[in-house]
Structures are given as C-alpha cells and as structure tokens.
C-alpha cells in the first residue's frame, strides 16, 4: 500500500524527494464497459517533460485526469510525488493538488470571475492577503504577457488569451508539476507558438516537471528541439540533431502506451504506427 497521508507542515512535493513526479503502474480504466486505457506504466522523473501524443479520443485527457486524481483507475496504481493518488480520498488530494498546476483543454476559466480572481483563485482560497494576491497575480500575468487584462472577464478575451490566463492560473502558486491538456488545440499557428513558448519558459526557467498533451506534431517537436533563452526572452532552436534531454515522448494508440522514450528514439522508431503517425 502506498503513502496516502500528507503531513501539513511539509510541502507534498518535498515529502519524498527521491520519488518521481509521476509514476503509473499497470493502470487501466474504461467507461461504460469500454476500455479506454489499458495497462499503462511509465515514470516522469522530476524536472522532466513528457509530450503525450496520440490520435483524438485515445485517452490523453483521461490520463491527465488520472494523474491529478480527478478520476480513479479501474486497476493499477498512480503515484504523484510518492503519494498514491489512486488510493487517496478526495479531501486528502486537495493539499497535494497545491503542488500540481493543470491547464484544461478549453481553459476552464471561471466565467463569472475576472481574470484577477481566476488567476488568484487558489491564493484567495488559501486566505493570502489581498496585496500579496495582487502582486503574485500580476507576476503570473506578466509571465504570460497579459498583465493589462486584470479586470476583464473570460468572455472578453480571445481563445489564445484565455489559454494564457489558464496557464497563469496554473503556475501562480509555483507548482512543481504542470499538466497541460491540449494547450494549443484549436488555435492558429502564431498563437500556438506563443503558448508553446510559455510552456517552454516554465520548463526551462522554473524547471517544473510536466506532461503536455497535444495532437499537433509541430508543437511537440518545437518543444523538443528548442530551449528558452531567459536573456532574450525568446525561444531558440537547439543545434541541429540535438533535442532537449529532459523532454521525452509518450505515445498512446488504441488505449495502450506504444512508445515511451526520447526524441531521437521516436524519430528513428521502426514501429509502423509511429512511422505513419509521424509522417
């Protein structure tokens, strides 16, 4: 049986420093008697990023929801920072989620709250003083270059801006793990590049562990082949034939994890599905 109790005086992410950020052990889940994910096992070491690829409807979002305990697997075990989320009660998961940032597919911003209240939601819940909330919200919005939208409502923002606010909300409490669910889905290429830049900045500047779900290969390979230069505040390509060593790929196909490895391994793979998927 894994550890399921969180000590209040130690950050959950620091309680078991040797444990990987995420560990899936033979996880399976289905809905309405139809299997969605079958026997999924992988590790996400701390500080690493995994890009989760796969055709639409293969269960990528389900895997992310499993990782932060929003849904429970039918079988198998899931660990986050050493805590067995698949065996924890909902109320015990809330303190653990303080160390996890989640960016939902459509942003999932609270439509009746302003951008300031959306981004500062977690801080308000933690009874952080208003001045401190304003400072940290402004800092998070500056990270996504949207500090001028503080008093706007989500409906007044464009799709790309809403995703950027969702990223700001996910990172405002400086989580050690960020889960991005299709952060560029449905966006134009220019806006997508901006979002990928933010994901990269979070990875390279703050060294957070992350899983990035996407079905846009160009975004995935940009993330693997570029790094963020903090001095120029821009993405820069890595030298030819080099990829970010901390960034790897997970590929799902028909509910199974068919690839877990580095960028060069993925590109050189002889698997017929992967070849067709990447072509």
């Amino acid at each position: 049986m894994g550890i399921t109790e969180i000590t209040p005086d130690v950050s959950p992410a620091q309680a078991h420093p040797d444990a990987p950020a995420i560990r899936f052990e033979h996880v399976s889940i289905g809905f309405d008697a139809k299997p969605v994910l079958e026997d999924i096992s992988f590790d996400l070491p701390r500080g690493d990023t995994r890009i989760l690829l796969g055709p639409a409807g293969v269960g990528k979002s389900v895997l992310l929801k499993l990782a932060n305990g929003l849904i429970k697997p039918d079988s198998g075990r899931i660990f986050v920072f050493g805590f067995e989320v698949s065996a924890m009660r909902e109320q015990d998961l809330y303190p653990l989620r303080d160390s996890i940032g989640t960016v939902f597919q459509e942003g999932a911003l609270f439509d009746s709250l302003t951008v300031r209240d959306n981004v500062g939601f977690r801080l308000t819940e933690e009874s952080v003083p208003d001045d401190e909330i304003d400072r940290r919200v402004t800092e998070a919005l500056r990270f996504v270059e949207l500090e001028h939208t503080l008093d706007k409502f989500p409906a007044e923002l464009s799709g790309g801006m809403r995703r950027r606010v969702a990223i700001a909300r996910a990172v405002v409490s400086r989580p050690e793990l960020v889960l991005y669910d299709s952060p560029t889905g449905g966006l134009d290429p220019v806006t997508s590049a901006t979002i990928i830049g933010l994901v990269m900045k979070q990875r390279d500047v703050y060294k957070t562990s992350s899983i990035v779900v996407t079905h846009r290969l160009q975004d995935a390979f940009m993330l693997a082949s570029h790094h963020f230069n903090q001095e120029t505040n821009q993405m820069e390509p890595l030298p030819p034939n080099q990829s970010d060593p901390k960034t790897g790929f997970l590929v799902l196909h028909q509910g199974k994890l068919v690839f877990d490895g580095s960028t060069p391994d993925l590109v050189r793979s002889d698997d017929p599905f992967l070849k067709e998927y990447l072509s």
Partner: protein
Amino acid sequence: MPLTTLDASAKKGVSAVQRYALLSARGVGNFFRRPFYGADLITQMDKIGVGSLPIVILTGFFTGGVLALNTASSLAQFGATAVTGQLVSLAMVKELGPVLTSLMVSGRNASGMASELGSMMVTEQIDAMRALGTDPLKKLVMPRIVATVVMLFFLTIVSDALGTLGGAWVAVVLLGQNAGQYFHSAYQTLQSADVIQGLVKPIFFGFIIATIGCYYGMNTRGGTQGVGKSTTQAVVVSSVLIIFVDFVISRFMIGIFGR
C-alpha cells in the same frame, strides 16, 4: 434482453440514489468543516431569499385572496361567512404557505442551481476547481443547501402573513365582512401544533430544493442540451418530492399532535 435492460435500469436507479445521498450528506457535513464559506453563504441567501421575495409576496397574497373568495361563497350557503378568516389562516399556515412558497422557490432556484452548476460541469469548471485544491461540495453545494433551508423558512412566514392579509383584503374590501371578526377568527383558530407543522415543512422542502438542484447540476453530462435536461429534471423532481414529503410530514404531524 428485457431482463438485461431491467437490470441496468435498476442499477442506474440505485446508483443515482447513492450519489444523491452522498452529495447531500457531504454537502451538509461540510457546514461543520473548515474553511467556512461565509461570503458565499450570504451571496446565496441574498440570491435565494431576497431574490424570491417578490414572487413569494405575490403568490401568498393572491392565494390568500382566492381562498377567501372561494370559501366565503361556500360558507355563505350555511350562513357561516364569519369563519372565513379561520379557514384562510389555517390553510395558509399549515399547507398552502409552505407548499406554494416551496414550489415557487423550486421553480426559480432548483432550476437556477442545476443550470449554473451544470454549465460549470460541462465546461470543466468544476474539475478546474477540484484541480485548484477547492472542494466544490464545500464551496458550491454547502452554501446553497444552508441558504435555501434558512431563507425558505422565513419566506414561508412572509407567505403565511401575506396570504392572511390577502384573504382579509378580499373578505373586507370585496365581500364587506368585518375586519375585526376576520382577524379574530384567523388568530383564534391557530394552535401551536398548526404553526409548528407549517414551519417544519419548509426546512425539509428547502433541503429537497437545494440538494436536488445541486445533484442534477453536478451530474450534468452532454453539453448545453444536458444543461437544459438537468434544469427541467431538477424542477420536476423537486416539485414532486415536495408534494410527496408534504403528505408524509402532514400524516406524521397529525399523528403526533392529533390535528
């Protein structure tokens, strides 16, 4: 095949009752756990209580009025119009005040809760709230249950009073009865058992409205169409349950108080 369908339907029904019971128990249990969402509670009290006041006043007043109108014409056949006030106040306090107020509040607020929470559900806002470390049952459900129970209690008192006044307006202004006689008979007939019965009902009805509204909202699936379905179901189920529970409470109270 039919047996399999029956089996699946039974399982679905039992599972729905289980989920409803869990949501209700956790919603109420959260009242005693920290953090306490006082600001959300006040907001809901304002929305449910103050927001429902105009419809409750109008419903109560005209129900009392129509009661007086109908009973007076029937009583006139026996020369007993003097007890119009008695009939109006008894009917309002024991039965019509609590039930009609609850049905009006159900139509306005069970639907509101189901559609608001349902929209949040289908746009992943509820999941986002959980992912941000906040229990939606504590922040969204608990304030709605407490606010509805508390405010429905007071709204029922308002409705009872306005119903009696509406009856008085009809009896005195339209039918020419004596105002003193009307109020005297209305007051004299009421016993503590009647008042207790009339004030216990809204506590149960308020709980039904809020928990049913929240249950359908929190279990919404299927986009905007699902939100519409949840809203309709919340109003229908809460209204039917109110009338059924009204019967059960009345039978129970009559058993205890003998009237």
